[in-house]
């Protein structure tokens, strides 16, 4: 049987890659995809612990996270389309409306 640390390291690696994606990419869609990656890393953790504790709750929460990811993707992409219709850009550093 695999020790759980392996899963944690895998999860950590995916999380870090996702974080780096969020921070360094300019394309908002790729940023969104990186966020999906982060969520996925969390899922691995949850499922691994679920398996090792023999408690199915972890999987339930992973399921909720997937649902959440779906909602987030829908809304996020909706925002992107709306933004694109208005501003003709999807570059993250041109989206600075938060400044006002």
């Amino acid at each position, binding site marked *: 049987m695999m020790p759980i640390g392996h899963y944690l390291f895998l999860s950590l690696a995916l999380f870090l890659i996702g974080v780096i994606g969020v921070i360094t990419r300019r394309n908002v869609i790729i940023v969104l995809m990186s966020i999906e990656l982060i969520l996925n890393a969390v899922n691995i953790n949850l499922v691994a612990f679920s398996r090792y504790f023999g408690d199915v709750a972890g999987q339930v929460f992973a399921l909720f996270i997937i649902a959440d990811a779906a909602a987030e993707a829908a809304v996020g992409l909706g925002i992107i389309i709306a933004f694109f219709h208005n501003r003709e850009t999807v570059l*993250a550093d041109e*989206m600075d409306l938060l*400044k006002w």
Partner: protein
Amino acid sequence: MNSSGYFLSHLWLIPFFPLVSAAVMFFFGRRLPKDAVNLFCVGSVFLSFLHAMGATLKLFSLPADQRVYQQILFQWVTPGAMPTSTGLVNFVADWGCLLDPLSCVMVIVVTFVGFLIHVYSTGYMAHEGGYYRFFGYLNFFMFFMLTLVLANNLLLLFVGWEGVGLCSYLLIGFYFLKKSADDAGKKAFIVNRIGDAGFLLGLLLVAATFGTVRFTSQGLADPTAFSGILQSLASMVAQHQLAHGASVFTTIALLLFFGATGKSAQIPLHAWLPDAMEGPTPVSALIHAVTVVTAGVYLVARMSAIFQLAPVAMDIVAIIGATTAVFAATIALVQTNIKKILAYSSISQLGYMFLALGVGAFAAGIFHLMTHAFFKALLFLGAGSVIHSLSGQQDIRKMGGLRYTIPATSVPFIIATLAITGVPGLSGFFSNDQILGHAFNRHMMVDRYLALWVLGLITAGLTSLYMFRLLFETFYGMSRIPVESEGHIHESPKTMAVPLMILAFFSIVSGWLALPVLWGEQSPFERFLEPSLRGVEKDAGSITFGHHTLLVEYALMAGLVAFVVLGFWLAYKLYLEQPKLHTKLAASWPRLHNLLVHKYYVDEIYDALFVNRIKDLSTALSFFDSKVIDGLCLDGAGWLVRAFSRISMWWDKWVVDALVNTLGWFPKFLSMPVRMFQTGVFSTYAVFILIGLAILLGVYGHHVQTFMRTLH
């Protein structure tokens, strides 16, 4: 009142239902379908009627001397201590309900006739715009009218009084795109304001004299703990502080009566009522025949205790009433608009009521108020039905022969005509007879009342004449309807016809309450009202009536019937048998005819005396305003301000702004490093979150580690 029961303890619900419904109409009415509007508005009035019925029946079940129920919802106006003629008094006006036989009659009349008119309106207004608005106003009006009637003090009554004035204005001007309707509304409002000024003065004088405006403290749980006009009056008279006929009583009575003349359209403030016929016909019926105009009568009856102590005022009331009765009846003889005839008829009948009040027969006045409510509402609704059938035609010269084309309207209308003219057996006969009988009785005590009695009789004859004229012109004889609209004549819908029938029934039977008079007993209606109208003293100088024998009673009735028959015969001759005759008659007395057609030139006189003078004054004031105030004061001040503002601007720019800018520059400079964080780009914020995470992990990492080690 320990055993008050549901209906009495929920008296406040009676005006509350229409208020809720009106609020719904005003806020959401536009979006509601017609059926919902009907359900809300008619339903709310019906609920009010049910509650009023319940309360009345409960009141009936009590012994006669306990038939007063009063309920104080909350203290409303509490200005504190107030100096009066009897010293400092803690003046309080509450928001409360009073139900005694007098308000009982009014509530029943208002809710019942009001309900029927609401039902009628659903048919009459079905094709009009602003349906919800109309019903919202109508319900709002019901709320104020019921507040007026159920008020337990003069101030609250004044609230209702003004409220019905407002609603009356809104409803007269309902077709606000029509200039005449707009003007009529304004006229009604302004004329009423003049009367209201009198009322307000009277109200203040009452408060100053008695230290309270609550009508009575009877009916409250602990009557001694509360003040009341009636009680205070009784104690003043008993302690001889004020005597019978004191000038303060006369003043109060005259001021209040002045208010009543405004509301009830008596001379000299009668001019608004005929114009008010511009409103939709159900409104004319509800407001300008049944409810608002009787408010004046109600007010005088309500304050009867004071009026009884002011004989001069009583005489004036009687004289004005009698004069108005004859005056309006004569005008009604020559009018050609069906609604205006009825309007003048209302004025005349109201004069009749005031005549009754003036001679001290308060119960007879209220009795006539009730019977009048039924048949006059019926007449108006019938007229509305006729107008509806003729698609808006109001001129009786263009009617005729409608008896058989619209039977469901004409039969009730004929009944109402018979009732108002005083044909024996119908309600009008009994109430007319009561009033004339009391006037005659007073004449037996005081000679000068003979003239009043004679005027009353003449009015009865005139009423008969113009009402039968109206009847014959409209329903009998040859049709004078223009050919092009002949084909459109249609019977009114059921919602309009059924209320007519119900009202016709009550026009017949409501007079029978006074049936025992025929065998010389006191009318039970009078006996029922007696506790409310009793007054405070029963000694010399108070109003007394002579007693006539049964034979004299029958003679009086015969006299009344004779006048009625005379009027009928004249109308028959002039308008049915020889229709040309009345035009000839008019031609032979052109001046008199013109005088009547122009309503005694009252409007013109008012224009000349008041309206134009006010216009002149306005012109003068406007001249003063534009030349002196604007020209000298304002422009001069403006120049000064400009001059000073120049100086001020310089100061502002070079001194104040410079300071402010310097001050503003400091935080801007200091915040430079912070501003760099706020890029508005979300990934920057993500970096900050990440830095936070790094710090947290660095600081608390070993805790996490410890926690992980404990996992099993």
